[in-house]
């Protein structure tokens, strides 16, 4: 029994898979949108994706080149810091491991700043992007990714709160040490583990 409880309050909907819902989250079936401002529109003719920073030779792909890279399907649960979780989302895209095969990282690279069209940034430890843990999503539920959900391409890191999954991704910058990105400068967690409920910087 909880030490504090609200009289008469109880769960309204039985969750079929409560062990997959992190603390403080609830399951939703639709796909809410959360962005700090308007949705940028990015013509595919000028779209590019780059790896830069602490690597031997920076590299950049055009939309065509990027789509020609080996793609995979991914099924993941995603967790937004505004409290919703969405189970079994289906994506297609390019694993970050695949991208990293094209470059030699300098040994001091430990963190990544993901940056986007529209100047959004977010920071992630390098290890959280490797070993199948993250990908650049191009298709969602069988359709090209819609602009309001980050299309044409978004970073997807399912094991961290979803703001780390930068929409409208433009590139990854490899850094020595950690630096706060957009929401992180505004007081959100540097890491964002939903299972530890690291929502705000003070939860780190």
């Amino acid at each position: 029994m909880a030490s504090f409880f609200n009289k008469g309050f109880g769960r309204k909907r039985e969750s079929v898979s409560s062990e997959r819902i992190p603390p403080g989250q609830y399951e939703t079936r639709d796909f809410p949108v959360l962005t700090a401002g308007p949705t940028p529109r990015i013509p595919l003719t000028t779209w590019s994706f780059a790896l830069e920073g602490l690597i031997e030779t920076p590299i950049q792909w055009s939309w065509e080149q990027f789509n020609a890279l080996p793609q995979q399907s991914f099924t993941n649960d995603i967790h937004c810091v505004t409290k919703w979780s969405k189970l079994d989302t289906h994506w297609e895209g390019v694993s970050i491991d695949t991208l990293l095969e094209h470059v030699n990282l300098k040994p001091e690279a430990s963190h990544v700043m993901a940056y986007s069209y529209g100047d959004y940034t977010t920071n992630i430890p390098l290890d959280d992007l490797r070993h199948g843990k993250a990908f650049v999503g191009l298709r969602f539920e069988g359709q090209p990714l819609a602009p309001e959900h980050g299309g044409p391409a978004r970073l997807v890191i399912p094991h961290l709160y979803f703001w780390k999954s930068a929409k409208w991704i433009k590139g990854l910058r490899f850094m020595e040490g950690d630096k706060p990105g957009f929401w992180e400068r505004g007081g959100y967690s540097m890491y964002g583990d939903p299972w530890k409920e690291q929502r705000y910087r003070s939860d780190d």
Partner: protein
Amino acid sequence: MEKIQWQIARVKAIVQETPHVKTFTLHLPQWIPHLPGQHYDLRLTAEDGYQAERSYSIASPPEKTGEIDLTVELIEDGEVSSYLHEGIEPGDPLEVRGPIGGYFVWKDNMANEPLLLIAGGSGVVPLMAMLRHRAKIGAANPTTLLFSVRTADDAIYRDELEQLAKQDSQFELILTFTRKAPPGWTGYQRRVDQAMLTDVLKRFASHPNGFVCGPTLLVEQVANTLSDLGLPSTKIRTERFGPTGT
């Protein structure tokens, strides 16, 4: 940084704003001054330990010390909002933590710049905190609130907003009714669209700071249209309420 702690607030008063909206005044043992636009997280706990957490914007200005007002719309079948509406009475305890949020906030250094507020439904709540604070500090920046509501019954804070508009020549209130306008209404009676936003932007001599809040679809359309109309995207701050997905 110190953890933003959960604290047990007491419900001091409850006001029925509209048939579906109530304002809860909470007395906080550890009140921290907030910025208009910030929110609190509210957590309900069932006797068996089950918890549900939601965010609610602060409606009151930071000048109202020791307490906060949360204005909550009753969502049909909503787990938290329906409990707050039906299960909470003055004197009851409620667990909250905050203030939270550093981007969708109106800062005092914006007090000399024009301000454009656009709300749909309960999206007016954080904008109300901005307007209340603006009135308290006596700011004279040109300010417009474009407020989209379904019917006259749904216009939260309408009396207070009309009062503010009467007292302050620099503040203009524009209502639009999307379902049913009151009898004799000569103003807008449709969803916020490009023509309306063009009209509204014309009133400003320079780019205003834009704050857009409400259901996802409205926020999405308004923010994108403002950007099409030439308002720099760095001037458009948005907050989307709740799981109205696209």
